């Protein structure tokens, strides 16, 4: 925030507090204090009903770090990072570079369509893709059978090997349009002279892309990373509506593990410990990438 006082002569220096107070109270009560309470609960053993909470120190965390189900969930979240983040960013860069500095006629229509999955409820996205992946009447398998690839017409979401990439690819579908729109917006701030100088020096389109466009988009790429990585780490709705973590534990993710521990198995303390670790990971990643982004801005300044 800027260090201006904003104070008029004769005005109380507390003036802003009255305007802030209602929002601050609601925020503290329904967001900030619950965060602290989650951290506190993670040191207790509690079933959610009984009067007695037992302080057990770090026992929930010790259990967590040796729980193969937690390891599995984290691993699945990391696989989702590839599908929700890395692949969409690459596709987004590719699509944006196609349009590079000169928008083509009819571009607005493409942008509207490509951004569409961002505004649709993830439950609806889940419903759409459960239909797409349906083993008998899903379009994907109907198509595979039509071109004679019956062997590949498997039960995508029910297969121990393929369920994870299948759900992951839904994430790719949701995110790539967002990345493209983000990068296109960023490209408008890259100065045309750089490209002119580069083509005078004989750089081809690909070299210009690598040496001008990508560095110029550093800030947008950082934003895309934060947004999509967080989406991959906290994914819940999509897993709930497509596979519920199955078959077995093959698509189980951290968000679903929290839900199951807290509301199915009544292990509040343990669920809180998972939630605390997940939040910590998300905060660290956000801050880390943001620092990297800021460094980039300072260097180019």
């Amino acid at each position, binding site marked *: 925030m800027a260090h201006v006082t904003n104070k008029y002569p004769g*005005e109380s220096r507390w003036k*802003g507090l009255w305007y*802030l107070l209602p*929002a601050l109270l609601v925020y503290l009560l329904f967001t900030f204090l619950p965060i602290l309470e989650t951290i506190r609960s993670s040191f207790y053993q509690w079933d959610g009903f009984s009067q007695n909470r037992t302080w057990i120190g770090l026992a929930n965390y010790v259990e967590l770090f040796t729980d193969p189900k937690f390891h599995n969930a984290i691993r699945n979240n990391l696989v989702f990072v590839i599908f929700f983040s890395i692949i969409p960013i690459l596709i987004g860069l590719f699509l944006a570079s196609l349009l590079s500095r000169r928008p*083509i006629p009819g571009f607005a229509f493409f942008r509207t369509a490509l951004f569409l999955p961002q505004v649709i409820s993830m439950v609806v996205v889940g419903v759409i893709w*459960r239909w797409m992946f349906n083993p008998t009447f899903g379009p994907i398998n109907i198509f595979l059978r039509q071109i004679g690839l019956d062997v590949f017409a498997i039960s995508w979401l029910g297969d121990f090997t393929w369920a994870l990439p299948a759900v992951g690819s839904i994430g790719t579908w949701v995110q790539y349009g967002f990345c493209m729109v983000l990068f296109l917006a960023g490209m408008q701030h890259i100065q045309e002279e750089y490209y002119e100088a580069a083509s005078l020096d004989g750089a081809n389109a690909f070299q210009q892309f690598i040496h001008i466009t990508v560095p110029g988009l550093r800030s947008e790429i950082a934003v895309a990373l934060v947004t999509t990585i967080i989406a991959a780490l*906290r994914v819940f709705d999509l897993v709930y509506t497509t596979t519920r973590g199955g078959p077995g534990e093959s698509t189980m993710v951290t968000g679903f593990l929290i839900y199951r521990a807290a509301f199915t198995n009544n292990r509040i303390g343990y669920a809180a410990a998972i939630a605390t670790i997940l939040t910590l990971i998300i905060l660290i990643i*956000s801050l880390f990438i943001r620092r990297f982004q800021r460094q980039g801005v300072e260097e180019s300044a």
Partner: protein
Amino acid sequence: MKYPWKKLLPRYLILIVFMLVVLVPIWGMFTSAFKTSTEVMGGPFSLPSDWSLANFEQAWRVGRFSVFFKNSVIVAAAVVISSVFLSTLSGYAFGALPLPGKNWLYPLILIGYMVPFEAVIIPLYNLMDSVGITDTLWALILPQVGLSISFGTMWMASFFENTPRELTDAATIDGCSRWQTLWYILWPIARPAVTTLVVLIFMWTWNEFLLALVMVQNEALRTLPVGLAFFQGKYTANISLMAAGAIIVALPTILIYVLFQRFFIRGMLGGAVKG
């Protein structure tokens, strides 16, 4: 500068492919909603013989989507109105008013924008339970106002910070109080920023799932996404009925997106950049 036709064609082709990947599943779901249960087996992308609304009617009445729709509207309206109002005040405090402790209060509010709902859902449930308001729409409204305020405050603060100070100075010299300056001078020019905030908070609230799933057990209080998720469990094989339900859930956000596209994209990109 324009592209020569030879360079334009391959670009169009690639864009069309990636656009079709997005649109074809949505289109397939859309047409399925108008088909009879025998037609839907006839091929996923065939057109319905007549665009019958029978599935929508069944979802709306038998599937109780009318009830879910009403709940979603109440929750979204309450969350949007109160968070935009509260965020305008708090954003004004950060962006234009004297406020002691600004430098630590601001990051404190920013934290709410970064934490996932999973991090607060358990204490929120216990809190609502202890005051006896789980299974009411209050349990959905209050936490979402809290979480929306986080983004809303940042969004409005940056708007007020970037309005020319001469404007508020002039208003003060003319005898406006801070309160009058906010509503008579700044609020009218804040319309684009407020519109963006309204459409974003509306979309987040309309699509919210985890909170609505956890807080409400009573079927009559479910919101659309939760209603659809349970509906899916019941009618997995009836694709056309599922599709009709899915469209009822998705249509409001799609319509608002198409109408307010500029605001939407600006907000999502701007919000992401700031967040």
